């Protein structure tokens, strides 16, 4: 059986008495696009830094592709933690040359590799410009290019779309998708943009107060809890609707949905039967639709 791309076991990090990452366990399989979610201050970036060996961990083990020695493991990894930093007085190309040396490439190999990664992120034309003159979007792309040096099998991206305009976000999203699909790189991505994560990732972990609160495939997580078989019912007269629903045996009123709709769990009552009963009770029904659950609902539910 293939080794997991990333395996985290009991990872813990404290700052004084405060436990920022608390006995974190997670596993990312090769080929996954894993979304690492959590509210601000949940410990995502600290956990990623611990995994990469940038900061000390107080307990736990981390291995990448079965390799737990951090120096050896980093051969498999490309990473961007927060905004990538560059030497602003050096060209984009010169910045990448630094990275190729640290990746163990010879000067001859370096030129070829730099051309490849620049081409991959679409920065070839600006490669000779000083990195200090790059826009944020270009810096992010240069960061991806740098992370791609040495052909990593896993990329760890911490908020890669942070601060980008909508076009920049879309380009970045497309690039990440393409890295997964075409370059077959396993992706571990932390982001606040839940819709984006839902669209890109196949597996998700949600962290809060340093602990993993939920983990699984996206469709599994979306199928959890109240969303499994609920309906949203709309009516011009919400009070009458609520009163009529309360009188129907077997239907549970769960709460308020979007646009003033009422969320119910119909249990054994079919939607057409429910519609008929409401009409019989004199309630005008404008909509009966299955509740659409998205990652935001799951996230809010898990982290409330």
């Amino acid at each position: 059986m293939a080794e997991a791309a990333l395996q985290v076991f009991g990872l813990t990090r404290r700052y004084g008495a405060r436990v920022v990452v608390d006995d974190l366990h997670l596993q990312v399989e090769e080929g996954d696009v894993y979304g690492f979610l959590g509210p601000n201050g949940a410990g995502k970036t600290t956990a990623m830094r611990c995994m990469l060996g940038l900061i000390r961990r107080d307990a736990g083990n981390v291995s990448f592709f079965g390799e737990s020695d951090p120096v050896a493991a980093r051969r498999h990894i490309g990473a961007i933690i927060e905004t990538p930093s560059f030497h602003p007085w050096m060209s984009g190309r010169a910045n990448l040359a630094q990275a190729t040396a640290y990746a163990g490439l010879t000067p001859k190999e370096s030129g070829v590799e730099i051309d490849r990664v620049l081409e991959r992120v679409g920065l070839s034309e600006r490669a000779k410009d000083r990195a200090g003159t790059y826009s944020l979007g270009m810096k992010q792309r240069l960061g991806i290019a740098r992370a791609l040096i040495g052909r990593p099998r896993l990329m760890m991206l911490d908020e890669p779309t942070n601060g980008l305009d909508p076009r920049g976000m879309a380009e970045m999203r497309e690039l990440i998708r393409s890295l997964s699909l075409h370059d077959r790189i396993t992706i571990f991505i932390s982001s606040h943009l839940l819709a984006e994560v839902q669209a890109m990732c196949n597996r998700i972990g949600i962290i809060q107060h340093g602990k993993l609160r939920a983990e699984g495939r996206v469709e599994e997580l979306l199928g959890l809890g109240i969303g499994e078989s609920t309906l949203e019912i709309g009516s011009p007269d919400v009070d009458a609707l609520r009163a009529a629903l309360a009188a129907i045996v077997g239907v549970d009123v769960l709460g308020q949905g979007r646009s003033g709709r009422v969320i119910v769990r119909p249990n054994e009552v079919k939607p057409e039967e429910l519609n008929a009963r409401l009409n019989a009770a004199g309630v005008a029904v404008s909509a009966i639709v299955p509740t659409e659950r998205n990652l935001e609902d799951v996230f809010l539910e898990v982290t409330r």
Partner: protein
Amino acid sequence: MSATPSLAGIVRAETVKLSLRTSVRLTLAVLILLSIGSPILLFLVKSMVVGATVTTTTTAGVVATVAPAQGPAAVNVASALESVRFFHDLFLFRTLLIAVVAVSFAGEFVGRTLREDVLRPVSRTQVLLAKWLAIQVFVAAGALVPVLIGGLLGLALLGTGGDVTAALSSWGLTWAGDAGFATMVMAISLATRSVPGTIGGTVLYWVFDKMLRLLLLALEAARDQGLLEKLFAAYNLKPLTPISDFFIALRPFLPSSAFDLAPSVFSSASAGWQGFLALALYTAGSAAVAWRVFNRIDID
């Protein structure tokens, strides 16, 4: 997949990066200018003195500061080397060295570019060693560039003669002192992890060292003139001669004795075994502190 990085490759990359820094380019440019200008200045002065031996007492005085009391004939390649070293000290090469070391360590820590290096398949010891060696290349350039340019130009313009061996060994001692000093600044830079902290820490070291040196000099003078004994006697105290002797004996081991082995603008010290030992100890101690700090710090 990445190969195993070689130390030589990383040092080369770090040296290239350092060479692209404005502070480094500026320092080397000034050194080159001084290395060219100094022998030319000596040549002009020598020509003027030879051409007007009777009247140019003022100019002869200037020459005398460079080639003491020997007259124009003593102005030669050795004088050129010494005069370039004089300017090397005078324009405070070490001040610029502090700046270069500060931006290479604390500056990269604060700027978060250090993070990008340690994210690669290299140990922190390798990263530190590569950056230290790149700084040492700069230190070496700071000595070799003036010696080569000043020496060759001095030879061409002023001819042979003088104690070239002594001049070159002084340059060697200056180089060794600069190398040790850079290592100490590296340790301060990593301990403070801030550019102002590096500069402030180094200034504090300098002030502390000079005050301690003055204090020990005063103590030595007081002992030699019998003032210490009189002081203890005035208070009916037993003289603490072994203790005062111990402290006085420490003076040759102060950092300034270690890093200023050659006579310079600021020091007339000449290298003794204590100075060499102190240089080795301070350099090794600073390297050990830097290594320990670098291997333990969190790199954001």
